[in-house]
């Protein structure tokens, strides 16, 4: 947690994640993905603007209508268990699960709330989602390391990290464009 707290999230601007792997999925899959993100957003009972902005960034990146944000907030207030089961069914065997963990952590780094219980509940939620998606421990660590690299803006480390055997390179290459890294 202390490490994650140190991550500087100011690098995330208002541009879209062009080429985010989820943007090429079916509409139904995109909604499941965003609903699951919204659950993490609402954990702890407070939705921070920074979290909402991150979800909006994803909505824009996925080329969806902005109005879905309200539906996602509705969903997160009264989640449907079947939707969560479907989310795990669709993504637990998909490489997209790596992106989900990355996005969840990225959103987490943007929160400003310092209440320990609040932060603990977020971390617990991300961990449970990772468990549900059956993401191996090594992959989780690699994703956290990737996030650290991005926040310290080290492009050479970023490209070498993409070669990490635990990560799927094609799933994260869009970040190079987003952060304007040059190989």
């Amino acid at each position, binding site marked *: 947690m202390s490490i994650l707290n140190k991550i500087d999230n100011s690098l995330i601007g208002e541009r879209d994640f062009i080429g985010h792997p989820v943007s090429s999925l*079916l*509409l*139904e899959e*995109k*909604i*499941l993905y965003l*609903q699951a993100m919204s659950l993490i957003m609402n954990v702890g009972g407070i939705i921070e603007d920074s979290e909402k902005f991150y979800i909006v960034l994803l909505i824009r990146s996925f*080329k*969806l*209508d902005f*109005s*879905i944000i309200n*539906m996602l907030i*509705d*969903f997160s207030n009264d989640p*449907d268990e*079947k*939707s969560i*089961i*479907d989310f795990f069914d669709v993504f637990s065997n998909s490489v997209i699960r790596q992106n989900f963990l990355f996005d969840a952590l990225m959103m987490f780094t943007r929160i400003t709330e310092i209440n320990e219980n609040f932060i603990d509940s977020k971390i617990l939620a991300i961990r449970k989602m990772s468990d549900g998606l059956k993401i191996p421990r090594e992959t989780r660590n690699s994703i956290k390391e990737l996030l650290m690299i991005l926040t310290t803006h080290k492009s050479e480390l970023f490209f070498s990290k993409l070669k990490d055997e635990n990560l799927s390179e094609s799933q994260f290459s869009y970040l190079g464009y987003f952060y304007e890294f040059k190989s």
Partner: protein
Amino acid sequence: MENMMNDGFSDLMNGHIDKPEEATTTKPKIQNNSGGNKYLNNPEEGLSLCASLISNSEYTGPNSKFQNEIKHIIEHEFLNHAEHDDNTTGARAYANLLNWQDKLAEAISFPQLEKSYTVAVGGSFSAGKTRFLTSVLGCPSLLPTDTTPTTSIPTYLFKGKENSIDALNFYGKKTSIDEEALKAICHSFNKQYGVTFSHLLQMIAVERKEFSYSNLIFLDTPGYSKADNIGDSTQNTDENIARTHLRSADYLIWLVDQQNGTVPKPDIDFIQSLDLQQPVLLVISKADKRPENLIREVIATAKADLERAEINYLDVIAYSAQNAQEISATGQRLTDFLDEINQGKNGSTLLWELEQIFKKYDHYYDSKHQMLSLTHKTINELIFDESISQDNRSHLTDINQKTKTQLTNLRNQKSEAQQIHSKLVGLLAQLCEGLGVVLALTPSIIQLQGIKKQGDMEALYFNALLQGELNKLSRFSSLNEIPGYIKKISSIGLVIEIDGILGIDIIIMKNQLKRYSTLFVGGGDVFKTGDPVKIQILDNKKCIVKVDIIL
């Protein structure tokens, strides 16, 4: 009294004098059967009553200001506005608004109808409907009953703050009457002169302080059958009136005289013809006329016959109006049933129905705007094509200018429609506040069934998300009503597919459907895979999906 007839009474009735049941005679059968009723004994009183019952008038009363304003907005402002639309959507919206206005008039006349569910009491002639009702309501002498078939008027009974009786004619004019007038209208005039008011009065409302159920309206309907014309629905006015009103009620209690031994075949045929959405409560009436063990046999036979006829019934019980006593498994099935309905409505659907009319109308503008924007964009691209000749460029610029003007007009029209909409909503809110009527944001399933039965609205409209290339839709001449179907019902909502087009994803999200959460009680099969829908494209990310109500 004969003088009254000869002095033009039949003319006054506008020809609505019942053809004598023995159609061979030309003169109405006149009996001296007034029974001391002042409206029959005194020609002036009788004429005065008839005149007020059939008169047409402008809206008057404390709410007339709002009502007249609404009438002006719909019949002048909206009509003038819609005349500038180059399609039939405006005409359809206008027709819907006129229907809505009629409903509003009914709500103003009888606000109770907006607050409570209606339980219709039906059955064949002499099944004991009125006696049953007066027993349940605790007012044994209120409603006129008779032993000979007469044409009656649907009568609504409800608990209120005062004792009053009102008659509403087909012009929407409400007239307060007294009990003698009620008896005269329902029976005596008919007996004496063969005159029926059923063609003139759409309903009678009886409000009583002492009624038992504060959030429930009972509807006493004419017996559907007369011995001489059962089965000939073209001639049986009572049957048609009964059918219309029974269909419009929210719940149905059907009475069968115990002497039938079960549910007679004509009753079964009639109940089936009602196409009921709610299970019927069948009551074997006059239960005191047989020993209890025999009554229980009748109940068992009736249940078996209903099941054989595949009629959805809540229960079969027996009831004695004489003793105000029920015979059933629990002994209080009727009370439980009425207590449950007595919870009342969450509110009036008038606002929701108005929203639906304008939602549909606004969508026309959005869709048309989308089409014109696409045209505008395409022409712009062509104009900047270097290979195009100067002349052609000039033509295209002209066309583009026209498209631009159309877009501006469309925006103005939409804005004007929205202003009219807002005005109506504001007036409705003020009106309902004055009436003490709460406006519901969404209808309950029972209300929705009622709206559907009235034929005012055949579908629900949902905002939906869309993904895919719109150029795949180029074969459709309009993006307003693209045919599609429900491909899948998933945890996130309804997945829609356009007929014959792959690669365009459409989803109505579950929270949209949740607005109609009451529809999902009992299995959630309101929407079925394969159900047809119509899609109206708004832009490349969203659309409107029209789903037929299948309840």
